[in-house]
């Protein structure tokens, strides 16, 4: 009897000890996405796992609702609070609606950050943007300039003339233009994010500027239409189409050579960086306050602005070397 009791007590004690050491060792970080089954977020989860493997003492919980609703995300958040996770990194379906639930999570000592799609300031400690307008503006010019050693004419094919994002990026791009001597921006036209109108605008550019060396389209619709127009005009090799595009849509253009390279955020890096930041904030190695610098592992460090927002990095460049890997992701 007493032997049994002793054995049982030891076993119980051992299991309690093991449980506590396990709990003390592993930081549980929940990566909450807009909805499960979206390639972009599955890729982000891969990045999070990569960060976890690098850190060693991290357990990633990849979760999200079945459809992109705020109500569904709140149910997920409540379940995560109940489990007592250490950190939540969320790409929100609604910046305001999830804020009360996330505020509750923070009240219970959980580290909360948002990434990709932000949360209202009161519902998170910091927000990680994939990139910044200045970085995007510079990247789209650089993508064209890198393949024009002798310089030459370039044109921009944008979305609509009122698209806020595109206008800011183009403004930033024109600012850095003097850094690229020999690159001559001859026109900015608008395809209204319609495939057929973008195609016609690209044709117009080619006939108006016979010496055109590159078309820069900071929109996924525009870059696809322009690469098609260049292909159809038989000008592959003469005119390089670049800008912001989706790997799944651009794989054909990269294969044919109409597009040498293009850029967009890398979801793997984003998931990786979000995990790193959540870990560092949770461990107390960094603080979420304006001006703070939070380490993001191999990507560098994120510097917070006055709204506790940070930009991760330059948009990621896709070309023949990596398009095969990414075209199935998003």
């Amino acid at each position, binding site marked *: 009897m007493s032997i049994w009791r002793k054995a049982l007590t030891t076993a119980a004690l051992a299991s309690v000890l093991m449980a506590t050491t396990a709990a003390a060792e592993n930081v549980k970080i929940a990566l909450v996405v807009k909805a*499960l*089954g979206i390639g972009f977020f599955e890729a982000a989860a891969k990045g999070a796992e990569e960060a976890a493997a690098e850190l060693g003492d991290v357990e990633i*919980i990849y*979760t*999200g*609702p*079945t*459809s992109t*609703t*705020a*109500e*569904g995300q*709140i*149910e*997920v958040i*409540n*379940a*995560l*609070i*109940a*489990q*007592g996770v250490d950190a939540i990194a969320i790409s929100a379906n*609604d*910046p*305001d*609606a999830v*804020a*009360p639930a996330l505020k509750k999570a923070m009240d219970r000592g959980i580290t909360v950050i948002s990434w990709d799609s932000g949360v*209202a300031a009161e519902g998170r400690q910091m927000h990680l943007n994939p990139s910044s307008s200045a970085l995007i503006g510079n990247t789209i010019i650089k993508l064209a300039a890198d393949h024009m050693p002798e310089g030459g004419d370039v044109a921009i094919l944008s979305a609509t003339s009122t698209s806020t994002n595109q206008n800011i990026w183009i403004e930033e791009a024109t600012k850095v233009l003097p850094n690229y001597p020999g690159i001559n921006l001859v026109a900015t036209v608008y395809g209204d994010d319609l495939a057929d109108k973008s195609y016609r605008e690209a044709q117009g550019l080619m006939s108006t500027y016979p010496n055109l060396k590159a078309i820069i389209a900071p929109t996924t619709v525009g870059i696809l239409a322009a690469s098609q127009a260049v292909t159809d005009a038989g000008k592959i090799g003469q005119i390089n189409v670049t800008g912001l595009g989706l790997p799944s849509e651009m794989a054909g253009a990269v294969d044919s050579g109409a597009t040498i390279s293009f850029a967009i955020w890398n979801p793997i890096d984003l998931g990786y960086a979000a995990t790193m930041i959540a870990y560092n904030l949770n461990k107390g190695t960094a603080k979420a306050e304006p001006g703070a610098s939070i380490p993001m592992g191999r990507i560098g460090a994120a510097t917070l602005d006055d709204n506790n927002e940070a930009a991760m990095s330059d948009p990621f460049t896709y070309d023949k070397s990596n398009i095969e890997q990414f075209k199935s992701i998003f």
Partner: protein
Amino acid sequence: MTGIATGRTIPDRLQSRTYRALRSWETILLVVAVGVFVINSFASPHFLNAWNLSDATFNFTEKAMIAFAMAMLIIAGEIDLSVASIIALVSTAMGLAMQAGAGVPVLICVGLFTGLVCGALNGALVAGMGLPSIVVTIGTMSLFRGISYIVLGDQAFTGYPDGFDFFGQGYVWWVFSFELVLFAVLAVVFWLLLHRTNFGRAVYAIGNNATAAQFSGIRVARVRFILFLLTGLMSAIAAICLTSRLGSTRPSIATGFELEVVTMVVLGGVNILGGSGSIPGVVLAALIMGMVTFGFGLLNVPGIVMSIFLGLLLIGVIAVPRLLRGK
């Protein structure tokens, strides 16, 4: 019971069979609910925690409030698929009132009034003009949410006044949230209304045979109209709770709630063709759906598994009584 065995008098057989089926269905639900509770307790160490369980009730309280009214509507042989859109419109109306500087009591009145107007429109089209409710409410489903989208576009109403957050985030006592208490009170009210009043009897009568009910002196159109009003009102109450819980309004609020509400009602044993069902069944169905969702969430089971589970449960609900009858 012996009456069934001998099968002498046909009316007796029908009545006692229905009665038996109803009783047994709620028993099955109760067993399932207890089973889910026990399994969850073993599956996750975090389940049996008063605050966690309290948080979990938010998964179903708002939908269940609408489900009570929807149950009566379906028992009467009608349906309202516009409930989620009524939530969107009510929330938008409250947002507009908030922007105009309204205080909490005015916001509540605006919300309830908007819900009643929506219900009255559905009721007038169905009961007044005799149009089929499924078609009418599919139409108003687009109409009500459409208005929200026109008003808000991709914007959101935020900054509801202090005190408004009580309805969706406040606690009456200890872990008992306002929503949970309201859910319990409304369950009792609807139980009394359906099972203990003439109005409730009329609802069953209409669902079983509207023509016969009409000839028995029941004012069928009026009862139907009141049921749609009631559904609009309950949607408004749910909208107030949800808006308060989210602290904001977007036109996409409560997307897909109508199907979850109907699922809850059917799972609760209400005959989708009308004529039978009970409030305790709906309460149990709400508890089961809420606890299963929460239990799966605690184990980080992807939500799609929950959808599969619910789908199977729903098919089971329809199939089991038929199989029993076939036997």
